[in-house]
């Protein structure tokens, strides 16, 4: 059914529209004065403390992950910011630290021990037990072969000069002390920290 609008109807509708718009413009059709900020995204996330792995400053970080650690929930870190209670950085982070989230979710991040056997070009995943046993075996063999109890002058030195150790930058003073004790106990001389890289 085709409906035609007469000239008169057209004027009426137009005038009505103008009147409505005018009422709105004059504030006679009040709108709700409402707005909302973005919801605070950390509200019920799980918070965990950690240490930034990059440099020797070892800033404290807070890691926030989705989920409340319930059995059926797969946690995933959604945000990282500085830990205000850590005396080292008191909540601040440098640009690398502020972007830690990207490192955590990087496809290139190493998440488990891998080994490249001699002569192979492939990295192969191994278990932690296997990795630790392998390292211990290598260390034992090397120490047995190269340990020096005395130097050329006959002075007792108990050195193990063929192995170096790279300690973690995330180690606290206490962890650093223990690392030092263990390594010096084995006779290791070359001790350094990842923090200097």
């Amino acid at each position, binding site marked *: 059914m085709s409906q035609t609008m007469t000239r008169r109807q057209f004027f009426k509708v137009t005038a009505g529209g103008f009147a409505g718009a005018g009422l709105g413009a*004059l504030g006679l059709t009040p*709108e709700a*004065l*409402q*707005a*909302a900020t973005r919801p605070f995204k950390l509200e019920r996330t799980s918070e965990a403390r950690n240490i930034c792995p990059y440099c020797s400053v070892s800033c404290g970080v807070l890691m926030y992950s989705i989920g409340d650690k319930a059995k059926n929930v797969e946690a995933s870190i959604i*945000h990282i910011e500085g830990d205000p209670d850590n005396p080292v*950085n008191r*909540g601040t982070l*440098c640009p690398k630290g502020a972007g830690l989230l990207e490192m955590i979710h990087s496809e290139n991040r190493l998440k488990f021990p891998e080994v490249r056997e001699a002569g192979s070009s492939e990295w192969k995943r191994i278990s932690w037990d296997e990795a630790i046993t392998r390292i211990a075996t290598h260390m034992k063999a090397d120490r047995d072969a190269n340990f020096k109890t005395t130097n050329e002058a006959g002075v007792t030195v108990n050195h193990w000069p063929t192995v170096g150790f790279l300690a973690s930058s995330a180690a606290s003073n206490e962890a650093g002390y223990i690392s030092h004790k263990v390594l010096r106990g084995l006779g290791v001389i070359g001790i350094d920290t990842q923090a200097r890289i």
Partner: protein
Amino acid sequence: MSSLDIQRRSATTTEPPQARHSVEVAKLIDVSTCIGCKACQVACMEWNDLRDKVGHNIGVYDNPADLTDQSWTVMRYTETEQNGKLEWLIRKDGCMHCADPGCLKACPSPGAIIQYTNGIVDFQQEHCIGCGYCIQGCPFNIPRLSKKDNKAYKCTLCSDRVTVGQAPACVKTCPTGAIHFGTKEAMKDYAETRIVDLKSRGYEKAGLYDPQGVGGTHVMYVLQHADQPQLYSKLPDNPHISASVQLWKGWTKPLGLAGLGLIALGSFFHFVRRGRKVAEDEYAAREKSLATVQTSQSDQPPAERV
């Protein structure tokens, strides 16, 4: 956030409730202690879930080269010679959260720009129509339209964090403490201590940048050369809302509305005094006039009805 905490809403005439007193917040950027590390840029992107595309080096440290819908804050680097010494001035650029926001004034879409009573000027993208007037209205050239959704974006002063009592992400991360956050009063007090220190170190013209042309801002700078804001990557000397926005939204619009009101009022009185004008039915009128013609010229055949 409760509707009661709104100070202004774009293109809306509804008056906000005003009885409650709320504390104004501010971010203070001390240019003299900034080392340009860009932690604030990273923290901003991380918190606000933005990821700008990897750009190109344009020969200077500015990276990205300009604000975008994904980069709400950028560091702008300037080399200048002052008092015979080379100075490297690094300014963190971004929304200034003006007390009298040009973007909000220019915005034609109801509710797309909100000013909260704590001073934060926030864009509500769901109401944004992508006209870009806010960019024209901004005295600091800050908002940017997204090519993805054609909506305007800018720094929110982390309104979501401030609402729950936290500091903006850039403030929290700043390793040198060049960015501070607190009440506007506290920030002015802290700025004063910085200015005294700068003056004692030979920066005679050190001062606070809180331009009154836009009613003051909720992001303020401590400048070593407060007499020459232009040095800092063309920070305006005396920013104000552009004349065209002032003329259109400040004068023409209210005048137009007043005219509209007068017309409505006039029509009402006309209706009451004179009543409605009853027009004769056009068809009947024509018939009548034809009949008159026919009676006067009865020897002619009746005219065809059109």
